[in-house]
């Protein structure tokens, strides 16, 4: 803020009125500490799987990350409805930030899944319903981000994105079931996911839930940080616009 002199009065000295930096600072510290604990739990405490060996530990990353990505897309869905109903730009920035985070997390879920599938199933990829649906999910939300950056008019882009955020989320269960029905007619050679068949040891389950909580915190932190960044970007562009008008 030191170089703020000469700018339009909107920004003179005061911080943006969001409470994010304080809250997200605390969240950052808490998440970082818990993530270290989480790593310790995963690599030191959780027992080694008797069948799969050490490679099974990727499970404690893969499953929480995948769940967090679904949470993120649900947030996009809710925020899109909120935006269409209220037309408050705050909803839009929640939806945008959650979509970006969702794409990051779903990409990580796909990558960890591919790395895990190779030693366990013997293939990098199989067109199993869950995998296929996750891939389609990734495509839908990559398209969502593309749409956002390709619409020249910003408020129009927010509306279009909200529409896609709703129809995309409604489409996901339809995709899942149709791929499942399709699969049930052409049975695949590869067995479905082994690890989450329900027979999970209590310690493993505990570590899994802990990891899920930590990744949810990480998601929350990144979401708030991204929204804050977006606010700053918006202010910057309006300042640029204002100073260009003055000249």
């Amino acid at each position: 803020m030191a170089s703020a002199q000469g700018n339009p009065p909107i920004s003179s000295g005061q911080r943006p009125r969001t409470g994010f930096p304080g809250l997200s600072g605390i969240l950052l510290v808490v998440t970082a500490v818990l993530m270290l604990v989480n790593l310790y739990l995963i690599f030191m405490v959780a027992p080694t799987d008797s069948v799969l060996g050490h490679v099974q530990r990727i499970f404690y990353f893969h499953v929480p990350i995948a769940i967090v990505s679904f949470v993120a897309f649900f947030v996009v869905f809710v925020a899109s409805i909120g935006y269409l109903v209220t037309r408050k730009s705050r909803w839009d920035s929640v939806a945008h930030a959650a979509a970006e985070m969702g794409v990051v997390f779903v990409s990580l879920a796909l990558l960890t899944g591919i790395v895990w599938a190779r030693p366990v199933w013997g293939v990098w990829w199989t067109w199993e319903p869950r995998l296929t649906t996750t891939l389609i999910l990734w495509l839908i939300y990559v398209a969502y981000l593309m749409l956002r950056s390709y619409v020249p008019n910003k408020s129009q882009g927010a509306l279009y994105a909200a529409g896609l955020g709703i129809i995309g989320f409604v489409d996901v269960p339809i995709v899942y079931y149709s791929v499942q029905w399709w699969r049930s007619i052409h049975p695949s050679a590869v067995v479905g996911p082994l690890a989450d068949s329900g027979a999970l040891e209590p310690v493993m389950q505990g570590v899994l839930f802990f990891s899920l909580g930590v990744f949810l915190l990480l998601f929350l932190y990144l979401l708030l940080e991204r929204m804050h960044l977006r606010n700053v970007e918006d202010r910057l562009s309006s300042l640029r616009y204002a100073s260009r008008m003055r000249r």
Partner: protein
Amino acid sequence: MRFFRPMATLVWKDLLLELRSRDIVVSALVFGLLVVVVFNFALQVSAERVTELAPGILWVAFAFAGTLAMSRAFVREREQGGFEGLLLAPVSRDAIFLGKVAVSFLFMLVIEAALLPVFAVLLNFTGFSLTLAAAILLATLGFATVGTLFSAIAVQTRSREVMLPVLFFPIILPVLIGAVEVSGAAIGSGPESGVVTRWLPLLAVFDAVFLVICPWIFSIIVEE
């Protein structure tokens, strides 16, 4: 009447435009043929594998030709500023949307009806059955509904030719799967009667879902 009159007018306007210029249907037809020829060489379609591969090739060709036709339909509106005029008219948004869906549906049906006999000859299948017709009708309705929404969106973006397929294909995937399944059974890749009774109602359900959501979203997001 207040709903169907404007819709019919809209459909008639687009049909008339197409009858005079013929650029959408003809270009999509040629493109669809090209897809089949390319697939024939890419997949080495032999006589034994043709019933296995034909439904997939058929629907990829239909879907690509369809996206081409749908994106052209809105580009034409945009070039002449006709879309703003449409939105200014005292007509419900649903009527505009469903009119556009009807136009895309008709165009795609014409394209498919022209391509199907050619495909049947080129890919060596004899399947002019009621099942296949039902699959084509239902799947095309779903294509037209979702495609109209997304081409209305895509036409407002930079690089609109890319945007429509990128938005359209992930969402429409269930309809595409169903269409391929039913056509496969109709063409005769085995006596799988369960496939037809399972997928035809599902296709109808997908259409119903899209027919509810898409006009609603269209009426909200298209404003100015």
